[in-house]
């Protein structure tokens, strides 16, 4: 009797554990257009509670194979993305493409390491991950906790893009494009020609305050060419899937305002400690403004003072 009860209890625990894992296992994704799936990240900082799932990540399914575009902010999110893919297709994952090196886009890479999967990134991405990877792991341990961070591995790309590169998924061509320093110094975009869907990574922000970690002048400089890409819609790095190129308007205005205000501060001899006053007129238009604007302005100041 006692033994049967023990077995029953064990089974019950197992069932609970399995159920909760099953609930967690699949990352919620939307099919935004034929064969293109997107998880819309929360507009937030990476925390233990959200498991780092703050960026938009997705995948594209061709006749023969699948390409994953960004893997999320934890290995857990990467595994959940993998589960979401496997719930929809059994085709092999031929490519994992990282749009740049920030932790919310690459921390899930380790979930996709297997024979037959090639990691793809900007030619500068390995350098950025070498310089920052360990720092990111240490820094996010504080907000995400040991459990999420311990299992993360930094996986750099082996197929590197400078200029552009076409990837074939079988009757479906992805056009990858490496950009000069803008949001970061390793920004890569992915255009699905079949549906006119552009995965822009963090070259495009909507709702979430744009984050400057490359070059403000470079970023403003690429917006024209970026906006001319033949896309119908964009999957931004952060914010809702939107029409193209109208989706660029808010970001362009923010960056222009920031550059212009910072230029005014530099010209009038203000110190860098005054940078945070720049782009104050944008505060009501963005989420997480106080988390990122002073940082953006500080970075812009250190660049614009060399003009």
């Amino acid at each position: 009797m006692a033994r049967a009860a023990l077995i029953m209890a064990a089974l019950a625990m197992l069932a609970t554990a399995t159920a909760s894992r099953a609930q967690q296992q699949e990352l919620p994704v939307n099919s935004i257009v034929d064969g293109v799936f997107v998880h819309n990240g929360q507009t937030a900082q990476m925390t233990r509670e959200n498991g780092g799932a703050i960026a938009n990540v997705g995948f594209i399914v061709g006749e023969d194979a699948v390409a994953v575009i960004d893997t999320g902010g934890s290995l857990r999110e990467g595994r959940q993305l993998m589960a979401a893919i496997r719930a929809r297709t059994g085709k092999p994952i031929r490519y994992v493409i990282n749009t740049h090196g920030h932790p919310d886009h690459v921390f899930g890479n380790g979930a996709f390491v297997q024979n037959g999967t090639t990691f793809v990134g900007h030619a500068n991405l390995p350098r950025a991950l070498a310089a920052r990877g360990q720092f990111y792991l240490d820094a996010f341990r504080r907000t995400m906790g040991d459990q999420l961070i311990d299992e993360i591995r930094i996986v750099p790309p082996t197929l590197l893009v400078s200029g552009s590169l076409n990837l074939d998924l079988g009757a479906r061509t992805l056009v990858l494009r490496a950009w000069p320093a803008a949001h970061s110094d390793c920004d890569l975009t992915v255009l699905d020609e079949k549906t006119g869907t552009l995965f822009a990574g963090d070259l495009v922000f909507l709702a979430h305050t744009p984050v400057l970690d490359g070059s403000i002048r470079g970023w403003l400089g690429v917006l024209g060419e970026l906006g001319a890409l033949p896309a119908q819609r964009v999957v931004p790095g952060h914010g809702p899937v939107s029409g193209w190129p109208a989706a660029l308007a808010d970001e362009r205005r923010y960056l222009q305002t920031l550059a212009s205000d910072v230029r005014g501060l530099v010209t009038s001899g203000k110190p860098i400690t005054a940078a945070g006053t720049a782009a104050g007129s944008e505060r009501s238009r963005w989420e997480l403004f106080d988390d990122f604007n002073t940082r953006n302005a500080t970075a812009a100041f250190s660049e614009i003072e060399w003009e």
Partner: protein
Amino acid sequence: MPGSLFRLSVVAGLFLFGAPPARAAEANDPWPGLVQDIFNNRPMNDGSDVIAVEMPSRAEDAAIVPVTLRTKLSPGDSRQVLSITLVIDQNPAPMAAKFQLGPDAKVSEISTRVRVNNYTDVHAVAELSDGKLYMTKTYVKASGGCSAPAAKNADEAKGRLGQMRYRQFGRAGEGSASGAREAQIMIGHPNNSGLQMDQVTQLYVPAFFVNELRLWQDDSLVLTMEGGISISEDPNIRFTYVSNGAKTFRAEAKDTEGHVFQREWKIDDSGI
């Protein structure tokens, strides 16, 4: 010798690199060890009336955290500030910079930008002409998000190597009458920390930074800085000093690869 201390700290940083600094910061206070390593265990006197160190309470951009050092001695005080050492306790190379103040330049304020890797105490230690050390400190929280104490645009950082800029600022209510000036020197340099591993060779990239900067008005020394990898890319020093009527301002910087960068500018007498 201070030069070797910078290197020593860098080497120590390599060994500590893998340790999670979040916990290390809370577990033990590195300051007593730093007093031993950097200041030879000399007694630390309360410096709150001698010197101020100002930083934002939260580092916004980990790679560019503004810091201002200000002398607080009253005009009647017979003591002079000889040097100010800036220590960022939890950084891989804690000794960020040592500034020596020119004997006649009356430097009263120095602002620069540093990298901050972690939640950390930041100490400023002034050595006065009475032969004693005076310490004050502040506390900075590391930045959040994807900010990192690394290059944002590594190619551009290399491209600017050795460029130097001088700028003079007007100061409200002062100017040429009192002789007080505010000026800034910018040096294009990646100031690479070296704490990164080459993907192919699996070796650490060597550190490459400005380790010495000297500033003169004509032939009179205004300020020198011995710097380490905690100083931000493109070292930028803004300072207040008193003009001796010099017509030129001169800067000389050296880096760890033996480059010497020199430039001279005419001083604008208008004070703007």
